[in-house]
């Protein structure tokens, strides 16, 4: 298989309402930044892979068609990806797979969401036929899983507040982050209103406008550029309504992580991965994913969070950029994780750089916590 690397990551400024740009302007902002970082011109791009979450989030169906000019896809192969919230990650995997196939040398990939065009919570809470209309957005769906995690492992309630604070303090080091909340502390979080028990307002992600793009190229075209080598990548899914499914610790997440660790030759992720950008849209998903991804044993995730292991200067930094908790343009959120992981190993994460980061992980999940996409990037090919 051909080896591939990320040579450019481009992001927009994330905000609640990017009314200064259209959808086309938003994706182009990320693309221009990625191509500038990669130092490539349009004629080098062989295909464009675009991802976003449900079209109902903007009310524009199949936007990859009307965005063809904005993403530079006219006359080139273009593919649209949609795997719910995990889409930013799976789009990255699919773009890299195009390069690894040998059929495409350099691929541009972009993901976005312009949530101010509609209302994501409304779009996620439709009336399903022949059922009571009680669904209440993503938070309402995930809150029972979180409650079961807390019950199963007797986790104290301040863990959720702690993640909410840590990620927002990291966001203060990232000028692109949507939420900048100086002085945030556990009391501020615990004083905010309850939305979906046990989740409070500041334990939940914002609704953002934004886009993230990457340029991925084959080994022979990297040249002297900064590069994040892709050492392992995978997607997995499982049946939402399948008997025996454990929503707290989904098998598809376990399998996906094992696959990328095997590809990258990682046997102890806690020791061998220097930092990770993990999809945590609600505070409690940090300890839940610490366990699901094999960074610790079951029931130990909240203890790692509690002892600051996931802080930017901790043993296993999680979400140095501020994470989904600080910026959440849903369709792009997974690619931001993948791209931020790449920036870390390229040494280009600026004020939220983890010192000497050589191996980083990007992770995304979506839907009913049944879609997963992950990758491992490294500063070296060896």
């Amino acid at each position: 298989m051909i080896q591939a690397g990320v040579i450019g990551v481009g992001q927009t400024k994330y905000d609640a309402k990017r009314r200064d740009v259209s959808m086309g302007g938003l994706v182009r902002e990320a693309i221009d930044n990625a191509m500038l970082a990669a130092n490539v011109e349009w004629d080098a791009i062989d295909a464009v892979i675009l991802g976003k979450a449900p079209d109902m989030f903007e009310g524009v169906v199949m936007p990859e068609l009307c965005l063809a000019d904005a993403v530079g896809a006219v006359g080139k192969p273009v593919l649209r990806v949609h795997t719910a919230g995990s889409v930013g990650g799976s789009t990255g995997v699919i773009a890299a797979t195009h390069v690894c196939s040998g059929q495409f040398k350099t691929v541009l990939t972009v993901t976005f969401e312009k949530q101010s065009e509609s209302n994501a919570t409304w779009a996620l809470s439709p009336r399903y036929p022949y059922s009571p209309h009680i669904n209440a957005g993503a938070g309402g769906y995930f809150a029972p899983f979180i409650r079961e995690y807390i019950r199963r492992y007797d986790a104290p309630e301040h863990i959720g507040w702690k993640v909410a604070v840590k990620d927002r303090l990291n966001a203060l080091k990232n000028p692109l982050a949507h939420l900048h909340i100086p002085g945030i502390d556990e009391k501020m979080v615990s004083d905010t209103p309850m939305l979906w028990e046990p989740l409070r307002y500041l334990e939940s992600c914002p609704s953002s406008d934004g886009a993230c793009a990457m340029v991925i190229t084959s080994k022979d075209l990297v040249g002297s550029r900064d590069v994040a080598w892709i050492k392992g990548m995978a997607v997995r899914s499982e049946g939402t309504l399948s008997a025996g499914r454990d929503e707290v610790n989904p098998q598809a997440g376990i399998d996906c992580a094992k696959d990328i660790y095997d590809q990258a030759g990682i046997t102890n992720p806690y020791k061998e991965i220097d930092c990770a950008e993990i999809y945590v849209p609600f505070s409690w998903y940090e300890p839940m994913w610490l366990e699901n991804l094999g960074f610790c044993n079951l029931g130990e995730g909240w203890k790692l969070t509690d002892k600051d292991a996931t802080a930017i200067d901790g043993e296993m930094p999680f979400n140095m950029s501020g994470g989904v908790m600080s910026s959440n343009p849903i369709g792009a959120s997974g690619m931001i994780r993948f791209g931020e992981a790449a920036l870390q190993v390229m040494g280009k994460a600026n004020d939220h750089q983890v010192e000497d980061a050589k191996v980083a992980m990007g992770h995304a999940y979506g839907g009913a916590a049944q879609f997963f996409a992950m990758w491992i990037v490294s500063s070296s090919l060896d």
Partner: protein
Amino acid sequence: MSEEEKKDYAESPINLEYHYTAGSATTRFLNQVKEGKIVGQSCPKCSAVYVPPRGSCPRCGVATNIEVPLTDKGCIESFTIVHIPIPGNPIVPPYVCAMIRLDGANISFLHLIQGIDVEEIRIGMRIQAVWKPKDEWTHSLENIKWFTPIDEPDVDVATLRFQES
């Protein structure tokens, strides 16, 4: 908001109406729900019981063609208390949205819990359906108004996980 900003965009609500074809498995299920009966469907291969049934077992990929009558009793697998109004949703918060696991079923579905102080609701609590008057029954789980606690010992939810025998 200033007049200047208002010129940049216009709000235009949309409404989507779907024609939904239930399919044979859901049709069988809903015809029985209309009669006040809950009938799950079982996988002929792994014996998992699905309610509401979707027609096939995601584990085995085969049709769930065995009908399994269930009662309207079960337990709360987990739950949340929703405190915010959801756009387009008629229910007034706070309300309890619970994963209902009926006795003999191997998956849960979401429904309301009422008839108890929300502070007393627990994972594992035994519950039973409260039905609407019979003349209001339609092809919908809305025939059940909500589930309400019954005086039976809590269930250890760890024992609910389906394991192929």
